[in-house]
């Protein structure tokens, strides 16, 4: 077990190093000078812009040798200093990110966990009953093929604009301040529900299909036929099939994280939800490269941590990793 987790940790450390290096390298490889764009945004006249250019180059340490810049980048990273934001003048990138994280997590964690369990349950049920298979499966296919932003658009249009049931934009009513009151909690939940539902529904479709197919594969396996021929109740056979099917679903969870996070970004944009996605849009529209770099690192770090949690859970579920036997 320690060997398994040690190997995984090594992989994640390597991935982190790789991601940080990409993050550092991309702005320096790409054509065009980000500082030029920055100066052009401030729209200074030519002499002042010369000076500004020099000032920014110096303050971002772009005049130093590359290896020095690389070391400084890491040092800043470890100290949690990701540079200043260009979009929101006066705020640092890390401040902005810390303010956005809670909203994104509030959408992502419930959506991922609930869709995983609900999807697995429904998928396993669909594999058992033909009538359910014929109704749930088509719906699941449509859901998993739906682009997140489009489902978000449709939900906003139908629920908020046509039926006027739920509010549209922001994370809570603009007249309120975040506080531990019932009024605020109600406002927060009513703004939270639709973006959450979007993420939940799309992810749910994928889990249901995956589990349904896996169970059918498992029931075709020899151990299942053997158990059946011994006269074991089909309930017991399905229990074993489910136990085996959960493992690939869990490794799938690690893979799916990236896609759900991507979905959360565009969903937030449609709902104007003040999380990481909305921040990315602002950074893109303002060519705020420091903010983008910081957000990229945030997403990578989040994904790596989540992957590690899934790996630990995998050890709990799969006895083979505990005893040191590597599954094929």
């Amino acid at each position: 077990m320690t060997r398994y987790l040690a190997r995984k940790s090594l992989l994640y450390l390597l991935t982190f190093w790789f991601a940080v290096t990409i993050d550092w390298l991309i702005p320096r490889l790409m054509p065009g000078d980000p500082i030029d764009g920055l100066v052009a945004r401030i729209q200074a006249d030519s002499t002042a812009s010369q000076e500004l250019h020099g000032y920014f180059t110096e303050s971002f340490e772009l005049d130093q040798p590359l290896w020095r810049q690389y070391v400084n980048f890491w040092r800043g990273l470890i100290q949690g200093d990701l540079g200043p934001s260009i979009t929101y003048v006066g705020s640092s990138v890390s401040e902005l990110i810390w303010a956005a994280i809670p909203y994104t997590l509030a959408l992502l964690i419930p959506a991922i966990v609930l869709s995983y369990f609900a999807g697995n349950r429904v998928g396993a049920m669909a594999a058992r009953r033909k009538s359910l298979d014929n109704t749930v499966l088509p719906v699941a296919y449509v859901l998993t093929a739906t682009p997140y932003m489009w489902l978000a658009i449709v939900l906003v249009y139908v629920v908020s604009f046509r039926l006027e049931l739920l509010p549209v934009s922001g994370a809570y009513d603009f007249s309120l301040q975040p506080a531990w009151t019932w009024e605020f909690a109600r406002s927060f939940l009513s703004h939270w529900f639709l973006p959450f539902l979007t993420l939940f529904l799309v992810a749910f479709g994928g889990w249901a299909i995956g589990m349904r197919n896996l169970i059918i594969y498992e029931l075709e396996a020899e151990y299942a036929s053997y158990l059946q021929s011994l006269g074991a109740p089909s309930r017991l056979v399905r229990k074993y099939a489910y136990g085996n099917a959960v493992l690939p679903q869990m490794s799938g969870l690690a893979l799916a994280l990236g896609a759900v996070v991507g979905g959360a970004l565009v969903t937030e944009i449609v709902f104007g939800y003040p999380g990481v996605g909305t921040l990315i849009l602002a950074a893109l529209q303002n060519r705020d490269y420091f903010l983008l770099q910081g957000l990229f690192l945030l997403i990578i770090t989040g994904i790596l941590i989540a992957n590690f949690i899934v790996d630990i859970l995998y050890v709990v579920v799969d006895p083979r990793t505990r005893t040191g036997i590597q599954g094929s």
Partner: protein
Amino acid sequence: MSNVEPTADLVATPEIALTGQGVDGIELGPRGKRFETLHFAVRNTKLVIGFCVVLAFLVLAIVGPWLTDATPFEFGYPLGEPPSREYWLGTTAPGQDVFAQFVYGLRSSFIVGALAAVIASVIGMAVGFVGGYRGGVIDDVLSMLTNIVLVIPTLAVLIIVSAYLSVGSLRSEAILIGLTSWPWAARAIRAQTFSLSQREFVSLARLSGQGTTKVILREIAPNMSSYLFLTFILLFGGAVLTAATLDFLGLGPSQVMSLGLMMNTAVSNAALQLGMWWWFIPPGVGITAIVGGLYVMNVGLDEVFNPRLRRT
């Protein structure tokens, strides 16, 4: 689960149907085999439905632009009019023809999806074949690389790359998507290659002195062609979704109409508040139908290729 990496159902395939084997394991000639596949293919509802949906939209994408005189970015049509006999899908708030935007957008989806899927398949096959067949240090290095790229979320990389490198054409968008979406395919192909390379006919080919490339191309690849085809379909669907997301964020080519760009302009022009459903419903329906059709087709094909699944 994942939109971009629809892995579970593919990776979990325990064994691939070996080419040339009939229902009861009787060896059939290549012609008999082809007829047998066709026999099951036309009787598979999932395959037929998925194929028809994708084909219908493909035909619309090819023929559509000839059915209208309007071009997607052209102004001068009535402002924000609902669908009518003259404007089949209505017009946008600033006065563009939605039908023209839709059919040109469909074209972009198919072009980007196909091109990105080809690129990702080629990389995935190269990494998967070499890693699975050669083994040893090469396999370790390739697996490590695959796992690293697999963990890094595709969309995050695409966002940061396309923010610096403004994407000007469908081709560069497709290349970017192809270069980032291959890892799960590589991993799946590697596993299949590994199990095939343990078979006797591969050892025989190796003993007869054939080189690595020849063994892979003549012995291994043909025997998992159905599996490779399924991988390609899933990559195609994933690429269409990724492209739509990028276009929606405004990171795709701005001079080429795409379904994601339609949604982007609809949202930023307050089509939702104005109740102009004909502007934002078609692009989503198009993407969902194409991707859903591809996924359903994939399951149907799996049942056709894999005799063990036919009973269900």
